[in-house]
């Protein structure tokens, strides 16, 4: 019998999905077949390695959540003390005038924003030109990806335009070109409802947040809350944090 990756996954993680006969037969094969035994060990190590990595990543996130500050003690003479105090006053005054939008909006944006993965399958991508665009997007070469998406837009049917506008918008957000991102996200929302509608609304809310326009961000989040999609909970969490 052939044991595929899915079977080994179940054996390692969800044995209750297998019958006792299937487990016994698999273990007998593992004993006899060196290659299968190695495959099992490799897949087990891969799963442990994956968990190890994401544990480390989460631990870093926890550390950053409330970084412990270790203060060093400096001994300053009188002149240094005056200089430090003067610099602090300057920093506070400058900060008061310069830091708009507010830090909280910026922080919220940063903690929620991440580039959307490319979910357009090769078969759906069509012509070579557009395949290049998605490949450039995956590589993070957003400026070139935008050029390719743009040239493709002219030759596309109205129903094919939403994904192009969507990925152009995310590329623009990555390049900090927020007006262009907004324009493209609005075009996705104007087109017929599809699988990019809720993601586009989510990114539009984040974009408004980045622009410190919480009122508009809240409007989009409210729509998402009632969308019965995976974005509903995210929208509620962000809405509560606003």
């Amino acid at each position, binding site marked *: 019998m052939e044991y595929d990756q*899915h079977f080994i996954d179940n054996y390692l993680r969800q044995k209750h999905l297998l019958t006792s006969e299937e487990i016994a037969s698999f273990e007998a094969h593992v004993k006899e077949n060196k290659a299968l035994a190695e495959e099992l060990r*490799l897949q087990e190590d*891969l799963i442990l390695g994956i*968990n190890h*990595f994401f*544990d480390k990543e*989460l631990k870093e996130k926890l550390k950053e959540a409330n970084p*412990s500050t270790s203060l060093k003690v400096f001994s300053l003479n009188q002149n240094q003390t005056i200089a430090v105090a003067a610099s602090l006053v300057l920093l506070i005054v400058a900060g008061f005038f310069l830091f708009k939008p507010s830090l909280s909006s910026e922080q919220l944006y940063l903690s929620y924003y991440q580039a959307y993965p490319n979910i357009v399958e090769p078969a759906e991508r069509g012509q070579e030109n557009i395949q290049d665009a998605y490949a450039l997007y*995956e590589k993070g070469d957003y400026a070139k990806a935008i050029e390719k998406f743009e040239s493709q837009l002219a030759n596309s049917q109205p129903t094919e335009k939403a994904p192009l506008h969507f990925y152009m918008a995310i590329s623009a957000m990555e390049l900090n070109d927020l007006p262009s991102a907004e324009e493209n996200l609005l075009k996705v929302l104007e087109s017929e409802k599809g699988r990019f509608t809720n993601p586009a609304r989510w990114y539009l809310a984040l974009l408004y947040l980045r622009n410190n326009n919480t009122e508009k961000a809240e409007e989009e989040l409210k729509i998402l809350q009632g969308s019965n999609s*995976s974005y509903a909970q995210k929208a509620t969490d962000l809405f509560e944090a606003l």
Partner: protein
Amino acid sequence: MTIAFINKKKLIEQIKQGNEDALVKIYVRYKSEFIGWSVKKFNLSHEESEDIYQDAILVFRNNIVSNKLIELNSSVKTYLFAVAKNIALKKINRSARQLSDEVVDKEPATAKSDAIDYVMADNERQKLIANMIEKLKEPNRSILKMYYYQNLSMSEIAEKLNYKNDKVVKAQKVRCMNELKKMVRDLCLKDDLKD
């Protein structure tokens, strides 16, 4: 950050769905209290206590996503402190420090065994694999995280990542795992040749 009341059922559901912000909120909420208690009770340093508390959060998450912890009979804080205490005791034992019998007391039995069951990756190959995951691109990285780390089903992943259906996700995951296997084999082969 203040949370007036923790809805335990909702919290468990959020963690099950991979909501790490919910974990961060809980972490922040009891952090200073735990560190103060741990420093006093176990004579551990601030850094050691912080590290233990972070590991306790990882255990808490792991127990929820692996369905070992379905419902909390105690408060979240009691559970977390009990798990953290067992990690601390293991650490102290490992360091061959002397323990008074007084500290091994009455925490929920499940929390004790859960902490002991939890195993961190410790062999070289797993560490090598963790390095490979770091270099993975999207959507592969998210798919592996959601499937193996968050324990979500293929249909849930398809919905979260807006794929057409679970079959497309499954095929993508198989491709990605096969690529990783090939990379590990190639690397191990190189190391063997070096030896």
